[in-house]
C-alpha cells in the first residue's frame, strides 16, 4: 500500500509539473509573442533555402531578417545571383537606387565541388555537412559529387581533412552549352549574297 501511494504521488506530481510548465510555456508564447514582419517570410521564400551560410548569416532565415532590417545588402546571396538581388530590391523597396548598385554585379559563374579521388580517404565528413545531400559515399569509400545537386556552398571544402575538395566552374556539356552573345564590334563570317 505504501509503495502504491509513493508511485501515485510521483506520477501525479510529474503530471502536475508537466501540465504546469506546459501551461506556462503556452502563456509565455502568447504573452511574449514577437510579431515577425511578413516581409521576412516573403524574403525567405525567395532565398535559395539551402542555409549554406555564404552570406555569413546563420541560415536563410537570419539573412532574410537582416535584409528586411536593412542590415545587409540585397546582393548578399551568391547562389541567388543577380536575379535574386533584383527580386529582393523589389520586395524591400530599394527600387531604382539598386540599378546603379547592380550595374557592376555580374553573376559569378556557378561553382560546384569536385573531389580528387586520389586524396579522398572516405572520412564521410563532407557528406555529413552537405546541405543538399549532393555528396554520395560511405565510410572508407571514395566520395563523389552529384553536380546537379551541388550549390557550391564551400561547406565540404572547409571540413575536408585532406584538402581533396575544390570548387570549380560547372563543367560545360552539350546540355548547357550555348552560343556566345555576338559582339557587334567584330567582323562576322556569313554566307555571301552573290559571287
Amino acid at each position, binding site marked *: 500500500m505504501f509503495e502504491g501511494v509513493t508511485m501515485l504521488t510521483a506520477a501525479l506530481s510529474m503530471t502536475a509539473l508537466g501540465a504546469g510548465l506546459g501551461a506556462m510555456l503556452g502563456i509565455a508564447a502568447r504573452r511574449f509573442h514577437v510579431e515577425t514582419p511578413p516581409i521576412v517570410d516573403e524574403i525567405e521564400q525567395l532565398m*535559395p533555402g*539551402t*542555409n549554406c551560410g555564404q552570406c555569413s548569416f546563420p541560415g536563410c532565415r537570419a539573412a532574410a531578417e537582416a535584409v528586411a532590417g536593412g542590415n545587409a545588402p540585397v546582393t548578399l546571396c551568391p547562389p541567388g545571383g543577380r536575379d535574386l538581388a533584383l527580386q529582393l530590391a523589389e520586395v524591400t523597396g530599394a527600387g531604382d537606387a539598386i540599378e546603379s548598385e547592380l550595374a557592376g554585379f555580374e553573376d559569378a559563374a556557378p561553382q560546384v565541388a569536385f573531389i580528387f579521388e586520389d586524396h579522398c580517404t572516405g572520412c564521410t565528413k563532407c557528406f555529413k555537412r552537405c546541405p543538399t545531400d549532393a555528396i554520395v559515399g560511405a565510410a572508407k569509400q571514395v566520395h563523389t559529387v552529384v553536380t546537379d545537386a551541388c550549390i557550391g556552398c564551400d561547406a565540404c571544402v572547409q571540413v575536408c581533412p585532406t584538402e581533396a575538395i575544390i570548387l570549380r566552374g560547372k563543367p560545360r556539356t*552539350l546540355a*548547357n552549352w550555348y552560343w556566345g552573345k*555576338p559582339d557587334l564590334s*567584330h567582323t562576322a563570317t556569313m*554566307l*555571301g549574297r552573290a559571287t
Partner: protein
Amino acid sequence: MSFSLAHLMNPTGLFALNGGIHPQGRKFLTADAAIEAMPLPSLIRLPLRQHIGAQAEPLVKRGDEVLKGQMIARARGSVSAHVHAPTSGRVIAVGYFAAPHPSGLPVPTVTIRPDGKDRWGPRLPRIHIEDASADEIATRAAEAGIVGMGGAGFPAAVKLHLGRKYDLDTLIINGAECEPYLTCDDRLMREHAEEVVDGAAIMAKALGVQRIIFGIESNKPEAIAAISRFRHALGYTISIKVLPTQYPMGSGNHLVKIITGRETPARALSAELGIVVHNTATAHAMHLAARYGEPSLSRVVTVSGRGVKTPRNLRVLVGTPVTEIIDHCGGLTGTEEQLLLGGPMMGFPIRSLRIPAIKSTSGILALTKAELRKSQAMPCIRCGSCVQACPSGLTPFEMNARIQADNLEGAVEIGLMDCIACGCCTFMCPSNIPLVQGFSYAKGRLAEKQSQEHQREETKRLAAARTAREEAIAAAKREAMAKRKAQMAEKKRREAEAKAAEGAAPGAAPEGAVK
C-alpha cells in the same frame, strides 16, 4: 476535290510562304555527282547521342568484337535512339571524343577499328509489311535506330507513333532541300526513287494516313521526274507538289503551310493538324530497315564548296571522320576559309576535322573567301529587310535590339521562341548585323536560366528534405534516450525493491505484520 474559286485563282494549289530568301543555290557543284559509296574508313567514331533526346547506353566495352549491324548502344527513355556498328571490327575505346557540334565539347563516344571484312551480324527479323500493324512498323524504326536525317535528328519512331495520339490524315515527305550546296536528297530521289516512295508508303502505313505528298523544290526537275515514275506503292498513290525554289522551304512547319495552307500553332506539332513531315533520307532508311532488316548504318553526305578539290555525294558510314571523307574527295584546296557541317544557312562551323559525320549530317562544306562575306556589323538603319525576310513573321531588328540590351524577356514577348533560326534575317541585313546569332544566344541563355531556376527549386527541396530527415533522426534519438532512461530508472527501482525485499526476508517479519 470539290470545285472552288480559290483553286481557280491559284492553279498550282500552293499557298504563299511569307518572307524567305533566294540565296544562290550553288547546287551545280554536286548536282550531277552520282552517289558513290565511300570505302571503309580506318576508324569509326560513334557518339552515343546522334539524335534529339536522351543519350544511348553503351552495350560494348573496349576490346569487344562487333559485327556490322550489331547494336552497340541502347536507347534510354522514350525519346532516344539505338546506335549500331556500321561495319565489323574491334571496339578500341569507349570514352569521350569531340562532338560534331558547334561547341566541339567531348561527348561519350564508342570508337571502332574496322577489320576490313565488313561481316554482317544477324539482321533485324523480317517483317511482312503488307500485313504488319502500325505498331510493328514504328517499332521497327526504333529497332533500326532511325532518326530524322534532314538535320535535326529527331527519333523517327517517336514521330511514327504519333498516330496513336492524333487523328492523322497526311504524310508529307520533305524533299525541298532548300539549303544551298546540298544535293544529297536530290540524288537520293533521282537514284533511289522507288525505294524512297516505298519507304514513304511504309511510314504512311505506320501513321495510318490516307495521303502522301512529296514536296520537292522546282530546282530539282530530275528528282520530280524520277519520283513521278513510281507513284504507287503499298496501295497508296502519292502526289507531288512542285514548290517554288525559296529558302527556308524545307522547314517542316513552313512546308505544311505552303502545301495545305494550314498554319501550325506556335510551339505545337503539325500532328495537331493531322499532318506529319518526314525527310526523304529518313524514308529511304525506313525502306532499308523494313524490307532488308538493315539498321541505320550509313547516309548520303554532300561534300561541297570551292574549298574541296572534287565535290561529291558520298554514301558514308555513320561515324566516319570528316577528315577521311574530305581526303576521299581529293582533299582541301588550301583556299578554304570556313568548314561547315550541314548546310551554309543552318549548319555550324567545325573546329576539328577529326570529328565524325553522324546520322544527321547532310553536308560537309569547305567554303572559300569568295563564297563568304566577312564584314563588320554596322548600325541598324531600320530598313525592314529582316522583317520582310522572316518566314515566321517576326521583327528581328527589334528582337536584336532588346537582346543587345540584355532584355531577353522583352525579346520573348515579341516572339523569340517562334524563331526557327533559319538565318534569313542575317542573310538580308544590309548592315551585316549577326541577327540570328543573337537569337541563338538568347535562346540558349534563356534555357540556361530556366534550368538554373529549376535547379534552385530542386536544391531547396533537397535542403528541406535533409533538414526534415535530420530533425526526425534527432527526435528518434531523443525518444530512444528517454526510453533508455526510463528503463534504467525502472531497473534501479526494481533492484532497490529486490534489495529491500532481501533485507526484509531475513528479518523474519511476516508480511502480514506490516499490514
